[in-house]
């Protein structure tokens, strides 16, 4: 499908939604303050009764000039700003930025640091997907899985607090390694957490994945074809939920994929009508169409299990290495002139970081390619002809976070 066919309304840019409303249509504002827009997102809906004819997202309510600030701080000083991009999976943001700067510096990472990074990044992926899946239930009116998932997420945050002192914005993965080693006993506590997480996942499946009402609310709604997903730049579970077999941890740049050298995991996407290793979980319902909300949700639930496997492998490899956790580069380290761009597989999609340097410690330009920005751009396409009640369902299935959209 070409881009002309997918965007039939070729009005002048920007589209004048507010000024040409027909008399039988209602222009409703799902304002920046709304319980289910996952942040300060403003959606202007043009509706005919309950049926949506057009959705226009307005962003920028959380813009904090992070990229501009990056032109005044050295890379290690800018790490806390990466925390606040996708604040739900800060470790992955730190990781993306650190890898990009290490690429510019052509830095060789010690083995132990690599394994610690895998452990915390995948733990944060579990936390992020738990929020995504269960806030999705919350958007649909199911309060209980949200509480149970947050109970598990509390344990992850306690683990991270032991590691780096913060519960949400960690600034732990730094350029050159990690800031501190794992405390003694942490691996045992992490293993305990993983064992407690398994029955919780089963409960979440029972309450959400196989719930008839949940299926009716999510199946065959917001269907995203693989071609449209690729053309709009959607990545992560949004892309894999449409059946495209693409994961940067396996298919990305060598500097990123060598972080997962020796790790075994499956890329969760539907191939030949079935998902990898889904025999223990509820089957795909007959009403669900590939690329709909339900499939994106299911991909996230299965990715949690894969991340658990990765964390266990990481802990095993960490025990066997006796390397160092890396030494952070100097705070005013001179950066070589040049530019580096690296994309990593963050929980919400592919996050790209770019650094352009002209030889000074402070970069000349910092740029973030946000996964949620591109995922959100497909929202007007998905929401043609749905009911108002489906808007939170589609937005929730895209799993956006405004911190990284607005930066």
């Amino acid at each position, binding site marked *: 499908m070409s881009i002309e066919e997918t965007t039939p309304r070729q009005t002048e840019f920007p589209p004048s939604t507010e000024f040409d409303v027909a008399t039988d249509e209602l222009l409703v504002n799902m304002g920046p303050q709304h319980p289910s827009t996952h942040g300060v997102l403003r959606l202007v809906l043009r509706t005919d009764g309950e049926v949506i004819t057009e959705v226009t997202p307005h962003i920028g309510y959380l813009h904090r000039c992070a990229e501009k600030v990056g032109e005044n701080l050295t890379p290690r000083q800018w790490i806390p700003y990466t925390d606040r991009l996708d604040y739900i999976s800060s470790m992955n943001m730190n990781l993306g930025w650190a890898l990009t700067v290490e690429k510019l510096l052509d830095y060789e990472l010690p083995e132990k640091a690599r394994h610690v990074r895998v452990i915390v990044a995948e733990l944060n992926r579990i936390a992020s997907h738990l929020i995504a899946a269960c806030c999705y239930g919350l958007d649909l009116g199911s309060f209980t899985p949200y509480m149970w998932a947050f109970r598990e997420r509390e344990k992850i945050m306690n683990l991270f607090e032991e590691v780096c002192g913060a519960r949400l914005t960690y600034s732990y993965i730094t350029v050159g390694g990690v800031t501190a080693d794992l405390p003694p006993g942490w691996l045992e506590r992490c293993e305990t957490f993983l064992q407690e997480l398994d029955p919780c996942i089963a409960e979440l499946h029972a309450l959400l994945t196989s719930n008839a009402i949940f299926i009716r*609310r999510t199946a065959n709604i917001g269907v995203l074809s693989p071609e449209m997903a690729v053309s709009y730049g959607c990545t992560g579970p949004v892309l894999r939920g449409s059946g495209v077999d693409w994961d940067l941890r396996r298919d990305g740049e060598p500097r990123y994929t060598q972080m997962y050298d020796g790790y075994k995991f499956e890329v969760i996407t539907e191939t030949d009508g079935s998902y990898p290793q889904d025999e223990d979980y509820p089957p795909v319902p007959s009403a669900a169409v590939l690329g709909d909300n339900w499939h994106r949700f299911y991909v996230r639930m299965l990715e949690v299990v894969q991340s658990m496997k990765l964390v266990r492998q990481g802990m095993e490899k960490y025990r066997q290495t006796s390397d160092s956790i890396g030494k952070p580069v100097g705070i005013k380290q001179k950066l070589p002139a040049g530019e580096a761009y690296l994309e990593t597989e963050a929980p919400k999609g592919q996050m790209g970081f770019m650094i352009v340097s002209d030889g000074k410690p402070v970069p000349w330009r910092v740029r973030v390619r946000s996964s949620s920005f591109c995922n959100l751009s497909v929202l007007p396409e998905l929401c043609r002809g749905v009911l108002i009640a489906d808007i939170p369902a589609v937005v929730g299935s895209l799993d956006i976070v405004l911190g990284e959209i607005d930066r």
Partner: protein
Amino acid sequence: MAEYLAQFINADWQWIVYVGVALVSCVLLLALVATAAAAFTWAERKVSARIQDRLGPTRRGGRFGWLQSPADGLKLICKEDIIPAGADRILFRLAPYISFCASFCVFLALPFADNWVALRLNTAVFFMLAVAGLEVFGTILGGYASGAKWSLYGAMREAAQVVSYEIPLGLCVLVPVMIAGTMDLVEIGGQQAGWFFHWNLFHDPFTFVTFWIFITCAMAGTNRLPFDLAEAESELVAGFLTEYSGFRWSIFFMAEYASMFALCGLGAILFLGGWNGPVPIGQWLVLLAPESGLLHDATVQFANLLGMCNFIFKCVAGVIFMMWVRWTLPRMRIDQVMTTCLKYCVPLASAMFLGAMLWTFAASVVVNARTEPPPSPPSTTAVAPRCYALQKTAREAEHGEEGNDGAGTRTSDEKGGRRQ
């Protein structure tokens, strides 16, 4: 009660007694309804907390936080009175009270024990359903008068949903009414006296299924999840309640809990035997008591008191069941709600009504066949069947056409009613 007191007073002033007794009844009912609403908010918080793996209120009033509800009520009364600038001021103020009055008036005809009812009506079921249907006016007015599009959406959804679900609700209610042959709730409850297998729930499998359809329609009629899209938090902020704060909000919520309580009460009487327990303790007490006299009367009323506690227990169990379902299931979309009503609940309820009617007819034929003495002219009055339709035929056969015109027009003089 009113007649008992009135006999002491001069005929000209007897109306004072009647008004006084009516006022006392109203005050008692209002106290019960308001206390029940407050207790249910506490129960909702505790039940939801336990389901969500946490504790709920634990600080106000000791370990169980039972004073949380009065504390919240006090806070809500003291809140600033905000009316949006675009709101219709009179209707905005009026709407919560319409809902609450409608919810409260339903209790007038709801008996809590044998003959313990504020207003004994022989069309009590009809009265309750009709008055409960007025509650939706408050919601629609509230949503419209708020002057906000989101509230309007909530109100329109509510209008469609509640009014549509009154149809299957009425059909479900028809089944025990048909079995009992009367709409008088005191009689319907009295017919289920004894052990639990006398309950209408176990009368036939169709009534059993009807009970569950009734519960579903009751949840839809009171805007409980999975049907709470009128106040859907995640989509409409709070739907028609968005612009309401403080005392007016609390009136709406009292109306919601009151109507939950009332519908559970209706279901308890129609299907679960009302004040008659699984075990006929009340009857045993009365058997133990002397035949007549003050002790007899006192024992009867004490048995009634136990029955009332039993009834309230059933109502509370029903409300907690509704809360349990609320915190487990996601919310349905408006078109799915309407599909469930029109394509599932209405045909199912109609089928159950038909099934129950055929079952009762077949049962009465079987009973007649067993007890009828050998050769005698065929008569449908050999054993008076429980089905009202056959009773009516029997009466007409005995007394000829006397201008009987249906169940709803018996005069208030016929207090005895027609029991089996």
